[in-house]
């Protein structure tokens, strides 16, 4: 897709350092404090500034980052982290165990993790370079969660955490390969190479391994208009365009000097309101599951087959530890007879089904439109209620306001993190079987045991309960100029080890 009819006549040397990269992103992050939010915009930017004790490699395996090593006790309740020495923050201060403890405690509280996976967990420092984590109950997902790339457990200086206001820290000092320079609200975020960065020496893989800032400056330009991002990428005003409209795939692939990249983002789901309305009846949910033609939905919503795959798994195919075939036969049934039968059994009488959606996210909107159309065709009285995203978020937590909504999730590292299974989350899953299975997974002592419970859960959910319907996994379209090399995508963009010439 890239003819090298490059205009700039710089000779190609081995590793070119220096230069700027401008990344056009679609939305302004609500904050740069990764503890605060699950927003992907935040993690995509702040992963360049902050680092975590642990991180994931491309197989979603937990590997150390700021920790030199870590060791888990037999009972799984205590984990000891040995910190790397000589790692300095961007403000010049060396990272010590005090910072780690403060950061981890802050993360637990502010991310809300202290209420689920980590309930009752404490961190304590032992000397300057050792930190001990004590869990109250063993948790299979704990380390994965600590390594997770969204709402990640960034390590920051203690003082900054202590002086942070409610909506997150306001000084962005981390240990990452890039340091924060300036945030012009709604315009750009400027990062620059951190000269004193202490890189690991391992091979880069996923988010793990060697990290080296090879460009002087990184600008994350906030360009909310999709077409403008495409145009700016085409002309080279931006070196990288994130969240590009998938319909422009062919065109961009044929644009000289532009390279396209398709990267997995997460599952697309239809979530039922199980607290009120017709979907309190599992039969109704099953009926809907029988109706939907997922291939069609995904094609309409994601434009091209390269951007989605049909998969029933509540965890990714790539997450080898978890992935299971269980329940597959219930996925993408597209069986209208069965649907009618189920509807009849459920006693459906043409009640209106309100699907909440928003045009703020094309993939969500487009999916909703196709779902609504398919339901209509099946004789179900479905209607779309379109609001701005903030309103949707509010309304979906009020049981009386809707029957279903569609949303995509970011990757989770273990099944207990799947929000639709959480009773307090919109959709209001309230099922004993699920609760018990989740608890079993959580306290499992081995991966095999946990996976067995998870398979049971996935089977149960597809066949009977249907907290939500997973429609498929989808990918994002990213484009970059062909003078950008070494760019990597793993749960978002990775700009270290990237050069521009």
């Amino acid at each position, binding site marked *: 897709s890239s003819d090298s009819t490059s205009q700039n006549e710089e000779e190609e040397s081995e590793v070119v350092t220096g230069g700027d990269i401008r990344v056009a992103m679609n939305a302004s992050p609500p904050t740069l404090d990764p503890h605060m939010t699950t927003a992907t915009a935040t993690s995509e930017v702040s992963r360049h500034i902050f680092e975590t004790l642990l991180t994931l490699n491309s197989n979603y395996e937990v590997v150390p980052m700021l920790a030199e090593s870590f060791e888990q006790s037999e009972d799984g309740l205590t984990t000891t982290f040995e910190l790397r020495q000589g790692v300095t923050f961007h403000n010049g201060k060396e990272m010590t165990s005090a910072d780690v403890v403060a950061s981890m405690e802050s993360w637990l509280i502010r991310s809300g993790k202290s209420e689920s996976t980590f309930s009752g967990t404490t961190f304590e420092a032992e000397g300057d370079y050792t930190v001990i984590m004590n869990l109250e109950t063993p948790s299979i997902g704990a380390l994965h969660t600590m390594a997770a790339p969204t709402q990640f457990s960034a390590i920051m200086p203690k003082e900054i955490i202590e002086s942070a206001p409610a909506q997150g820290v306001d000084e962005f000092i981390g240990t990452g390969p890039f340091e924060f320079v300036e945030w012009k609200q709604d315009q750009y975020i400027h990062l620059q190479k951190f000269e004193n960065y202490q890189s690991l020496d391992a091979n880069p893989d996923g988010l793990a391994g060697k990290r080296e800032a090879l460009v002087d400056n990184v600008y994350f330009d906030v360009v909310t208009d*999709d*077409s403008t991002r*495409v*145009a700016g990428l085409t002309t080279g005003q931006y070196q990288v365009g994130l969240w590009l*409209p998938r*319909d*422009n795939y*062919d*065109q961009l692939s044929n644009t000289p000097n532009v390279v396209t990249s398709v990267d997995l983002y997460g599952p697309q789901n239809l979530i039922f309101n199980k607290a009120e309305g017709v979907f309190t009846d599992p039969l109704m949910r099953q009926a809907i599951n029988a109706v939907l033609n997922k291939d*069609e939905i995904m*094609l*309409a919503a994601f*434009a091209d087959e390269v951007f989605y795959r049909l998969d029933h798994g509540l965890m990714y195919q790539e997450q080898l530890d978890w992935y299971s075939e269980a329940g597959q036969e219930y996925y993408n049934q597209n069986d209208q007879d069965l649907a009618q039968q189920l509807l009849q059994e459920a006693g459906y009488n043409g009640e209106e089904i309100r699907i909440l*959606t*928003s*045009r*703020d996210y*094309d993939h969500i*909107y*487009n999916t*909703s*439109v*196709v779902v*609504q*159309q398919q339901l*209509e065709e099946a004789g179900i009285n479905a*209607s*779309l*209620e*379109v*609001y*701005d995203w903030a*309103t949707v978020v509010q309304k979906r937590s009020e049981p009386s306001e809707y029957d279903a909504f569609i949303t995509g999730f970011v990757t989770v590292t273990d099944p207990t993190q799947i929000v639709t299974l959480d009773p307090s989350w919109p959709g209001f899953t309230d099922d004993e079987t699920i609760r018990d299975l989740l608890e079993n997974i959580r306290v499992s002592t081995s991966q095999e045991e946990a996976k067995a419970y998870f398979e049971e859960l996935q089977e149960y959910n597809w066949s009977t309960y249907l907290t939500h319907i997973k429609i498929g996994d989808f990918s994002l379209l990213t484009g970059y100029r062909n003078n950008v090399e070494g760019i990597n995508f793993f749960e978002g963009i990775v700009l270290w080890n990237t050069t521009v010439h």
Partner: protein
Amino acid sequence: MEVTMKDQKLSEIRSSIKKQRRQLFIKRFLANRLAVTGGIIVLITSFFAIFAPFLASYSPYEMEVTSRLVPPSTDHILGTDNFGRDLFARVVYGAQASMGVGISVALITSLLGMVIGLYAAYYKVLDHILMRVCDGLMAFPAILLAIAIMAALGPRLENVIIALSIVYTPYVARVVRSSALVVREQTYVEAMKAQGASTSRIIWFHIAPNTLSPLIIQSTFIFADAIIIEAGLSFLGAGVPAPDPSWGNILFDGKLVIFNAWWMTLFPGLAIILTVLGLNLFGDGLRDLLDPHSKRVKK
């Protein structure tokens, strides 16, 4: 003309003159070629809107996801959209919503604006209050208003109309007020007062008709703007409810694919431009017609 009509019955005079008048009215309108063109354009658009079901061979909702974004062809004369729906059907059906929104908003704002503008022009105290309210409304971000209204009343077409009406009414009110202030000073208004006419009679029978021509200009403009803004509002859930088509939301969908599916912006865009053009020409003609003084210079 100069026939002595003394022995003719008055009623006869009446009917004959009325007929003459009507003929002159029509003749004057027809003489205004641009206005006629405008009228025809508006008629055609309305025709499309009303007879959409007979004109479109596809349903505007039927998706054919395998043939997304097909360029115009014999099968889909205007091509298909990003869901593989027939664009012609959507544009034609979209006329219903867009014209509906445009016309209702134009009518409601005209009416409301007229009431506010006229009374503000007539009563000084009211004027201060109403104009301050208008100031406030005009400073208000339309998008916030739309979200609030949608949230309060639900995302329905009527509410789009309400939201847009609230946004535009102050503009109309100001226009009406400013010309009513002039008309109010005319001697014929005083003459009516001298006859003992009540205030509402003076306002509605004597001042109102004389503020029509700026009103017509303003409301044709609002019609155009409402069609376009509706599209913007539908982004906030304040527009025509999905999946119903409107020119505005087709345009917005088309905007995403403007680089590779020109037909999705071109056709609804053309529809808007033509209708607005037609309506403006028609409005101009109407204004000329309502103004007994106007003399159009013909070449």
